[in-house]
C-alpha cells in the first residue's frame, strides 16, 4: 500500500518535473543563470504581493472610501468618515451611546479578554511545563495529553465544549449530582465570558507549554546542582534560577499569546456566536459581521476597524521579533 502510494507520488512528481524542466532550461538559456533565481522566486513573490502586501494598501483605501460597493474603482473617497463613525461616541465608557456600539462593545470585551486570557494561559502553561520538566515517568504521554487540543480545529473545540456546557450536559448533570442547580452556562453573559476564556486556554495552552518546556530544557543542569549544594529551597531555585533564565522565552510566549489572543474569532463564533447579546463578541468578529455577515455589507467600516487592529498587532509583532532574536542569540 505505502509502496504503491510512494511510487504513485514519485511518478506524478517526475512527470511534473519533466513537464517543467524544458521550460526552465529554456528560461535558463534565455535569461542566463544570473536572473534565474527570480524565476524560482516568482510564484511565491506573486502570491505574497497579491494576497499580503497589496491588500495592506487596498485596505487603507477601503477605510477612507464609502458605499457598499466591493470594487475600489466604484467607491468614492470620503476621507476619515469611517474612522469618525467608529469613534463617534457621547460617552466612551458606555457603548450604547456610540454610533457603532458593537465596535465599542467588541473593543471593550477584547480589552478585558486579552489580558485575562494571556495571564491565565501563561500561568497554566508555565506550571505544566515545570511539572513536565521534572523527573517523571511517561513524559511523552503527558506532554501529548496537554498538547493534543492544539491540533483540534477551533470548530471541533467549540462543539466539544458546547456539548459539555449545554443545559442538559454532563457538567450540569454533575452539578445536580452534587445537589446544585443547573446553570445555563452559555446563556448568562458573565459565565459565557468566563467559559470563552477557559475554552480558549484549554485549546491553546499546549502550544505555549511546548515552547516553555523547550526553554526550561535549555537551562543547564549544573546550575541546579550548584544550587542544591548551597541547599537552596525548591521555591528559591525557581525564583532565582528558573524564572530569570526563562525570561527571554517567557517574553516571546507572552507577546505571541497576546498577538493570537487579539485575533480570537473561530472558537467563540461557534461556541457562543458572540452572545448572549454581544457579551463575547471580540474585535475580529466585529470586522467579520460588518464586512461579511450584516446586510448591507459595510467594507469601509470593516477595513477601518481592521486597520486599527493591524496597527496594534504590528507593534506587537515587531516587539516579538526583537525579543525572539534576542532569545535566540542568547
Amino acid at each position, binding site marked *: 500500500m505505502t509502496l504503491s502510494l510512494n511510487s504513485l507520488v514519485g511518478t506524478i512528481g517526475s512527470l511534473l518535473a519533466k513537464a517543467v524542466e524544458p521550460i526552465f532550461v529554456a528560461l535558463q538559456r534565455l535569461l542566463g543563470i544570473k536572473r534565474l533565481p527570480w524565476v524560482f522566486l516568482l510564484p511565491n513573490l506573486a502570491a505574497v504581493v497579491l494576497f499580503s502586501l497589496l491588500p495592506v494598501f487596498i485596505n487603507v483605501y477601503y477605510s477612507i472610501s464609502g458605499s457598499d460597493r466591493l470594487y475600489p474603482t466604484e467607491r468614492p473617497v470620503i476621507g476619515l468618515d469611517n474612522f469618525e463613525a467608529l469613534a463617534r461616541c457621547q460617552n466612551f465608557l458606555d457603548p450604547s451611546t456610540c454610533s457603532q456600539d458593537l465596535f465599542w462593545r467588541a473593543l471593550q470585551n477584547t480589552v478585558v479578554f486579552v489580558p485575562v486570557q494571556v495571564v491565565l494561559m501563561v500561568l497554566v502553561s508555565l506550571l505544566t511545563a515545570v511539572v513536565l520538566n521534572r523527573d517523571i515517568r511517561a513524559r511523552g504521554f503527558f506532554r501529548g495529553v496537554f498538547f493534543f487540543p492544539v491540533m483540534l480545529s477551533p470548530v471541533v473545540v467549540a*462543539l466539544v465544549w458546547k456539548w459539555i456546557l449545554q443545559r442538559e450536559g454532563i457538567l450540569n448533570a454533575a452539578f445536580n449530582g452534587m445537589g446544585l442547580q443547573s446553570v445555563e452556562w452559555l446563556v448568562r453573559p458573565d459565565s459565557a465570558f468566563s467559559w470563552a476564556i477557559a475554552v480558549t486556554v484549554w485549546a491553546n495552552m499546549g502550544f505555549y507549554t511546548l515552547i516553555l518546556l523547550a526553554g526550561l530544557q535549555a537551562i543547564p543542569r549544573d546550575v541546579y546542582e550548584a544550587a542544591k549544594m548551597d541547599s537552596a529551597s525548591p521555591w528559591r531555585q525557581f525564583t532565582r534560577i528558573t524564572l530569570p533564565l526563562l525570561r527571554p522565552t517567557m517574553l516571546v510566549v507572552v507577546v505571541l499569546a497576546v498577538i493570537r489572543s487579539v485575533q480570537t474569532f473561530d472558537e467563540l463564533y461557534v461556541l457562543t456566536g458572540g452572545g448572549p447579546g454581544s457579551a463575547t463578541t471580540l474585535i475580529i468578529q466585529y470586522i467579520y459581521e460588518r464586512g461579511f455577515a450584516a446586510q448591507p455589507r459595510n467594507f469601509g467600516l470593516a477595513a477601518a476597524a481592521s486597520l486599527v487592529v493591524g496597527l496594534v498587532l504590528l507593534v506587537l509583532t515587531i516587539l516579538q521579533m526583537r525579543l525572539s532574536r534576542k532569545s535566540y542569540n542568547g
Partner: protein
Amino acid sequence: MAETTLSRPGSISAFLGARRGRRRLDWTDWLSYGYLFLGVLIMFGPVAWVVLSSLKSPTALTEFPPTMLPYATETVRVEGFDTPLELYTVTLPDGTTKQMAQIRRIGLQAQMVDPENPEERISVPLADRTPERAIAPAWNNYTDLFAPNSGRNMTLYAGNSLFITIVATVITLIINAMAAFALSKYRFKGRDGALMAILATLMIPSTVVLVPVFMIVASMGLVGNLWGVILPSVATPTGVFLLRQYMLTIPDELIEAARMDHASEWRIFWRIVLPLSAPALAVVAIFSVMSRWNDFLLPLVMLNRPDTFTLQLALNSFQGENVVQYHYLLAMTVLTALPVALMFVVLQRYIASGIASTGIK
C-alpha cells in the same frame, strides 16, 4: 479548570524544584502526578465524552442525567407485529417479574405482550415496568452520514476539505521550496529585498486584510470556488524561512559538481536540493495540512454555497440549525477531528520539535 489547579498557592512551591535522578517518590512527586492526572481528566475528558456521546441513539441522547456508556433498550421481534418491540421487565400484580415486550402506551398504562406467547396480552401501570437495557453503540450515527441522498453529504464536505488540504499543501511545498532555493543557493542583486518582502508578511495577519483579499479573490471570479480558499495563503513566510535555513546547510560543492556535469538549475533543485531537504519539507507539510484542514475564517468568507462547504463549515452550519440533530452532529465532529488526531499520534515528535524550534503553528 485552570482555577482548580491554581487554587493551592501554598503547594505551588512543591512543583518547582527541577531536581533529577531521585530514586524515591517524595510528596512533591505525588503532587506532580496529581496535577498530571487532573490534566488527563480535563484535557481528555471532554473529547472522550463527545466520542461516547456520538455512539448514542437520539433517544439516549435526550436522557438527563446522561449515562456514561451508550445504552439502548433491547428490542425483540414478536409474531404478528411488523416492527421490533421494546423489551421490559414487568412486575406482575402477584409480585413475580417477567420479561415482556411493549405494544403501546395508553395514558399511564402500557399494553404488554409475552414474546413467547403472542396471544397473552396484559395492561400494566408504567411504574411497574423497567426497560431491559444493554450497551448498544449506535454505529449508524456514523454510517448514515455517508448514505447517499441522506441530505448530509458527508462525502462531499470531506472531499472538499481533502481537496483544499492536499492541493494547497502541494503548492505550498513547491513554491516555498523554490523561493527558499533561490534565496539560499544564489547570490544576486535584490536577494535581501526579496527575503524581507516575504518575511514582512509575518506582520500581516490574514484577519486584518480580510476585505481586500476577498475583493481580489472576487475579481478573479473565485468566490464560492475551492481555489478561492487555496490561493490566498499558499505562500507562507515561516515555510520559506524554515526551508531556507535548512537549505543553507546543504554544501554548495554538491551543486557545483552537478553544474560541472551540465545539470540544469531546475534539475539541481528538483533532484538534489529538494530530496536533501526532506526533513524540513516534512515539517512544513505537517503544519500546512493541519492549518488547512482546520481553517475556518477564510472558507467562511469565501465559500458561500453549501456544495462548496468544507467539513468545518458544514459543522458550523449544522450546529446553527433550528432543530439540531445531535447524534449526527457529534459523529461528524468526531470524524472531522479524526485525521488530525491520527496525524498527531503518528507524528507527535516532529510536531513538537517543529513548534519548539520555530514558534509557528
